[in-house]
């Protein structure tokens, strides 16, 4: 993971920065990343590294500073997710009977849906589990000739 990440950073900087700045910037990023990894952990440090690398590359590529509004920010509606989850948990805990009813309804609905799908899948969607299933025929008893009103060709199992 770390090797892949650094290969990406290396390629990204080499493509966007002048050769004189490329090596010193990469060195600075390596030092700062090691420090950040100790203080923030591996995942956050990796995210930080990607953001820094993209920021430096963009400035050198466009020659413009990013305004604070152009830098990456978590969108407001995504920021609301943890708050909404917390509120939902509070509401559910406040009325346990309603919560139980909701969970039971959802469980039944999901269970029924899954069962129906499994049955339809096994009987209709998938071919019957025999070799050359398309050649299977449905056998029917032939009634006495006097009772035959019309003749029909044999029906296939898979129709």
């Amino acid at each position, binding site marked *: 993971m770390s090797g892949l990440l650094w290969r990406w950073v290396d390629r990204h900087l080499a493509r966007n920065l002048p050769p004189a*700045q490329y*090596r*010193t*910037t*990469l*060195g*600075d990023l*390596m*030092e*700062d990343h*090691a420090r950040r990894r100790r203080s923030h952990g591996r995942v956050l440090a990796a995210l930080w590294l990607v953001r*820094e690398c993209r*920021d*430096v*590359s*963009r*400035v*050198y590529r466009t*020659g413009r*500073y*990013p305004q*604070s509004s152009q*830098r990456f920010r978590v969108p407001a509606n995504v920021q609301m997710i943890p708050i909404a989850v917390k509120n939902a948990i509070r509401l559910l805990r406040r009325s346990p009977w309603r919560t139980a009813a909701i969970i039971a309804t959802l469980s039944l609905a999901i269970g029924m849906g899954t069962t129906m799908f499994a049955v339809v899948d096994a009987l209709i969607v998938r071919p019957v589990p025999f070799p050359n299933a398309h050649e299977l025929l449905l056998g029917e008893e032939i009634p006495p000739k006097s009772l035959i009103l019309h003749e029909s060709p044999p029906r296939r199992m898979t129709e």
Partner: protein
Amino acid sequence: MANVPSLGEFEVLVLMAVLHVGDEAFGSAIRDQLEVRSGRKTSRGAVYITLDRLEEKGLLQSELRDGTSARGLRPRRYFTLTNEGTAALRASLKLVARMHRGLESALGTLT
């Protein structure tokens, strides 16, 4: 005075950060100093490209020194102010001070 280049606000801040850091003024240290003293987030790219531009203008000079193993032996680029840089910085600060004179009642003192 007429030959001293005028500086933008960010250029002034970067030059002052270089002076604050002193002998160990390389990219990351300058940026950290800038963030700590100005109290605002600063883009790494903005600092680096400003350092390049100030060097092109002859206000800064840089020197490559060998890197440590922590940075994969990649060199560090250390910056120092040239005489022109010091003069330009002084002129910019004086200009602000002159403009501020007479506005103490509206803006208060600068320190």
